[in-house]
C-alpha cells in the first residue's frame, strides 16, 4: 500500500527545493519518519533517474568532494502531478469509506 508514496515524497521534496542534495532529502524524509534506513534512498534515486524523472548536476561544495544535486525533469513534473492527483483521490476515497468510523469516534 505504501508503494509509490516514498517516491511521491521524494519527488515533491525535490520539486520543492528545485535542486536537492540527497543528504538534505534524507533529512526531510527523516523529519517526517518516511524512511527507516538511509540506504533506501539511493536505489530509488537511481531508479527515478533511469526512468527519466530526475536528473542531476555536479556542484562544487565548500568542503569536500563535489556533490550531486538532483532536480526534476519535465517528465518528472508531469509524473509528480499525476501522482499527486492519484494520492488526493486515494485520500478522498479512504476518507469517504471510513467517514462513519471517524464520525463515531468523534461522537464518543
Amino acid at each position, binding site marked *: *500500500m*505504501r*508503494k509509490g*508514496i*516514498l*517516491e511521491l515524497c521524494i519527488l515533491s521534496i525535490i520539486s520543492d527545493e528545485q535542486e536537492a542534495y*540527497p*543528504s538534505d532529502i*534524507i533529512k526531510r524524509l527523516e523529519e517526517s519518519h518516511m*524512511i*527507516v*534506513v*538511509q*540506504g*533506501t534512498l*539511493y*536505489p*530509488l*534515486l*537511481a*531508479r527515478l*533517474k*533511469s526512468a527519466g524523472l530526475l536528473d542531476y548536476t555536479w556542484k562544487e561544495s565548500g568542503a*569536500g*568532494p563535489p*556533490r*550531486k544535486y538532483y532536480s526534476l525533469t519535465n517528465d518528472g513534473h508531469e509524473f509528480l502531478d499525476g501522482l499527486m492527483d492519484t494520492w488526493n483521490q486515494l485520500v478522498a476515497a479512504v476518507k469517504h469509506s471510513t467517514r462513519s468510523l471517524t464520525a463515531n469516534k468523534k461522537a464518543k
Partner: protein
Amino acid sequence: MNKVFNINLGGIAFTIDSDAYEYLSNYLETIHNHFRASEGYEEITTDIEARMAELFQERLENRPIVTLQDVKHVIAIMGTPEDFGAEPMGDEAPKSSSRGKWKFKTGKRLFRNTEEVVIGGVCSGISAYFGIEDPLWVRLFFVLITISGGVGIPLYIILWAVLPKAETASDRLAMRGEKANVSNIGKIIEEEVAHVSKKMSELGDELKSEFGSKKKAPRRRTILKENAVLPMAGFISEPPLPRGFMF
C-alpha cells in the same frame, strides 16, 4: 594497539582501524553484490559511499581515526541491503525482472568452446550453454539434422562464423552461466592447468608411440615425456585435427 589503514571513501580520506576497515569493506562488498545486477549500479554504490563518508565526517568531528564503533553506527544508519529490500518501496517485481534481464544479457552467453573442439567448438559451446554434460549429444543432433534435411552444415558454418571464441576465463564462465568472481576464476584456472597438463601428456604419449615405433626405442619413453614435451607446450592450444571428421 591497533593497526590503521588510510582509505579513500567517496573522495574523502580517512584513517581507519584495521578491524573497522575489515567490517566496513565487508559491508561495502555486500552492498556492491546486492546492486551489481541493478540498473544504475555504479551510481547507487558511489552515492552510498559518499553518504557514508559524510556520516563519518559528521560523527568524527575532530577525532582522527574511524573506529569499529563508528563503522557499526554508520552502517546502522545506512541499513543493510536486506533493509532496503524490506522497505515499503521494495518493489519486488520490477527489481527481479531487471535482474532476470541482466542475467539474460550478460550472465550466460553462447561461445565456441575452444577447449573441446572437433571442428570449431560450436557444439561443445552449445552444450556448455544448455548445461548438457556431454557435447556428443549436440554433435549427434547436428549429424542427424545434416542427414535428414541437410541444414546441419550451413547452420554449423553460420554459428561458427557468428559465435565468439571463449578466450578468457570470464568468457568460459559466461559460457556456462557462472558468475565471474574470484573463486570461480580460480576454478577455471585450475581447470586450465589440468587441461594443459592433460594435453601435454597426450602429446607426450603420441610422441612416445611415434618415436617408439620408428626408432624402436621403447625404453626411452619416460625420459621423453619429461624432457621433450615441455618445449612443445606452445603448440598444444591447437589440438590435433583428426578425431572423426563429423563435427
